[in-house]
């Protein structure tokens, strides 16, 4: 496999390899963070020294459909021994869906010293690397988060309404069956409350999984990604772009690919996604 720097990415610094992580387990400047779909997976075994940040319990607001606020984010960082200068290395299951989602939430608070471990947990395991059940404890830190900046990273329902009114491009990264309305949910996944099947009018369907190598979950080379997004789907790096899926996790993955690996400079994640749009009164859908 080519080295990350040789894959032609716009910003190769946002990725690290499993080798790099293995060599940096004792590096005091980094904090390894695992984020998974199954919250029990971390406890079953994790990369030595890694902490867990769970999307439902740690990143989501508990009584509003939103993310935690600045104070809660600061507390989360302090609790996990993360300073403003700590380089946070995210990894997780499902080819880094939730790791990308956590990475994206960290950007809302301006924590730009963040990277993904290419291939995520699956690759680490396949390579037979060490996992432990020891829960690390780090001394509390000082952390000052920036005020949460949704504007540069999130698209809200009203933004999407305006977006389609202006004919701007939208990417639906769900499966083709969900996009067409044949299914209300991902194959083999439960229907998390969407009343209608289909997609946001004008959206194009580029399933998230097309950006990875299925055997180990690593990202495809820039040439292959450009072929997919730019050549086949006529997108442009300067497009004002919105990505969405079901609840914003798969679209965080595609957001990461487009923003950092291909250099799309104006892409946002619509985290309300289909569970909001598919249920909203008065919003049109397309099948």
């Amino acid at each position, binding site marked *: 496999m080519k080295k990350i720097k040789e894959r032609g990415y716009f910003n190769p610094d946002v990725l690290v390899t499993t080798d790099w992580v293995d060599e940096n387990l004792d590096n005091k400047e980094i904090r390894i963070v695992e984020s998974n779909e199954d919250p*029990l997976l971390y406890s079953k075994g994790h990369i030595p020294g890694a902490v867990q940040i769970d999307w439902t319990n740690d990143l989501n607001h508990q009584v509003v459909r939103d993310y935690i606020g600045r104070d809660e984010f600061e507390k989360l960082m302090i609790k996990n021994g993360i300073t403003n200068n700590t380089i946070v290395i995210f990894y997780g299951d499902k080819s880094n869906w939730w790791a990308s989602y956590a990475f994206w939430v960290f950007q809302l608070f301006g924590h730009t010293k963040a990277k993904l471990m290419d291939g995520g947990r699956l690759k680490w395991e396949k390579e037979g690397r060490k996992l432990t059940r020891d829960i690390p404890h780090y001394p509390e830190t000082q952390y000052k988060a920036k005020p949460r900046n949704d504007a540069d990273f999130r698209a809200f329902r009203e933004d999407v309404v305006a977006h389609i009114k202006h004919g701007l491009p939208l990417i639906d990264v769900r499966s083709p069956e969900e996009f067409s309305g044949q299914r209300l949910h991902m194959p083999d996944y439960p229907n998390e409350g969407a009343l209608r099947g289909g997609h946001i009018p004008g959206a194009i369907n580029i399933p998230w999984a097309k950006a990875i190598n299925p055997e180990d979950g690593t990202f495809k080379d820039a040439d292959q990604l450009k072929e997919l997004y730019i050549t086949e789907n006529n997108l442009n790096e300067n497009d004002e772009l919105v990505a969405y899926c079901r609840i914003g996790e798969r679209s965080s993955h595609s957001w990461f690919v487009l923003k950092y690996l291909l250099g799309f400079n104006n892409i946002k994640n619509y985290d309300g996604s289909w569970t909001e749009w598919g249920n909203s009164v008065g919003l049109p859908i397309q099948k």
Partner: protein
Amino acid sequence: MIGKLDKIVSFFESMDNQEKINYLIDYSDRFKEVPDSIASKPYPKEKKVEYCESGVYVWTVINPDGTPKFYFHIENPHGVSAMALCSILDEGLEGATIDDILNLDTEIVYRIFGHNLSMGKNLGLIGIIQMIIRQVKQLTLDSY
């Protein structure tokens, strides 16, 4: 509810969160794959729990004494919650009667795992119990 399962579920309800995680991991470690004598690959689609994120398959066999026995396969090696629940069901439903199974309450998922799981995860785990009930119902109907 079945005495053995009831005891396990009540035990989980009495735990704090960390204890609960430890016991769930312990159960997931004890997860037993369906033996070749019961099923061989490729597993039939009708044995697959619909909507479970972890790709769980369930088989029901009626023992000579009339009690059902359940076997499981989990596609996703990262489906730890599913492994734990299948293991709990395997242990807790030992000796249960057909009527016990038909009266199983899917609420046990919340009682074991708490309310902190995502909606998708809960629905998938509930789907495993519903599959067990459905298969027992089907086997019971077939015997008439």
